[in-house]
């Protein structure tokens, strides 16, 4: 992968070397799934569930987002989704809503980097 692309992804909080290892050094497969990430519905479902005050659905969305972010080595997004998951496991909607802006910012970062990559 060229250095410029790599830097772009790294700056967005994606550990490229770690992701490549997870895809067994299959760069094409890794890129295919990175570029599909913007279609993933978990982020919007998390937003919606929080707006609706539905802690159970919000927990499921945050939990799934955490898994996907982890597998794609989106290190910071993974950490933030993890924090929300734990807030929501305790049904603490207030804490989750407080954590949300930071996650949103990180998510937006990744999406714009991936758009640029395309």
């Amino acid at each position: 992968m060229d250095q410029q692309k790599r830097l772009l992804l790294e700056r967005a909080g994606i550990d490229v070397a770690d992701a490549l290892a997870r895809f067994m050094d299959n760069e094409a497969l890794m890129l295919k799934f990175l570029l599909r990430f913007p279609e993933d519905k978990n982020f919007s479902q998390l937003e919606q569930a929080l707006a609706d005050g539905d802690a159970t659905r919000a927990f499921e969305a945050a939990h799934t987002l955490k898994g996907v972010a982890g597998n794609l080595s989106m290190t910071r997004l993974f950490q933030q989704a993890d924090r929300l998951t734990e807030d929501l496991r305790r049904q603490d909607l207030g804490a989750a809503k407080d954590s949300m802006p930071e996650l949103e910012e990180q998510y937006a970062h990744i999406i714009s980097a991936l758009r640029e990559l395309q």
Partner: protein
Amino acid sequence: MNGDKDASLLIIDDEMVNRAILANIFSPEYAIIEAEDGQEGLDAIQANADRLSAVMLDVVMPRLNGIEVLRRLHQLELTDRIPVFLITADACSDTMREAYSLGVMDVILKPVVPYVVRRRVNSVVELFRARRMLGAEVERQRDQLLLQAQQLAEMGIGMVEALATAIEFRSDESGQHVHRIHDITCHLLHNTPLGEGLTQEQIQQIGLGAITHDVGKISIPDAILNKKGRLTAEEYELMKTHTVKGAELLSRIPQMREHAAYRYAYDIALHHHERWDGGGYPHHLVGDETPIWTQIVSLADVYDALVSKRCYKEAFSAQTATDMILRGECGVFNPRLLEYFCQEEPVLRRFYPCMKGAC
């Protein structure tokens, strides 16, 4: 296991990227099956139970979640046969404890690390495979032992038959005599109420005892055994000792003593010349003092002697033989025994392919 197309691995996860990562890790070694939720996963497990090497199971999923899938697999006792791995982003200890109690083999955390997940899964798959092979091997060896035991038992019976037949040959008979007595005895025990209360195994043992009923004749000199004319009183007394001698002979063979058929063989050898009215020998037993199975052998012995040619007599027809028995010309028999004998006698003729008056 490389290239083993029979080995399949099922990945149950609602996120395509998670399935793709695991599929990419395991596709060199396994045929990959994917399911997008718990219900689909459960269906796939039941449809492929015989060829699944392992199941990778996500926890939070729509429809049926991973723990519910696990609960169903546990009920179906499938977790004993197929190793299930929980793949989860959730290190929550309650979930893990429940998963382990439901028979999960291992819990692997997302994000997965390829070489770790591969090693952990493969070593468990190998363990299950080895266990299956060992189970199959134990079963194979058990079958072999059973077969050998059966062969040994058959050889033992073969030796007894050989001994009895050899003795029959001495007295100038075909050797068929012992086999027919065996067949008649077993037939009456199997097909009439005379065999009530006896197991198949016991009837088989009585049949073996019938074969050795005359082993004591080995002690009788040829001159008496094969004498063409009538025996003198003294010769007859000697002839009668074949009962006691036979029982004694059997009791001196340790292998025979330990055989389940011994108690039958001993009594049959000793008492197959007793009669219902006490007119037999050697102990002049009366009525049911002689066990019913020995009484049957006595009657079979008499019937067979009558319808066969012997050195001292020609063969009688089946009808004549039956009439003679019923008239008490060969001693008195148990009336109940005679009743079932008469009922079955026409069938007994089929044991004699060239019977006089029957062919």
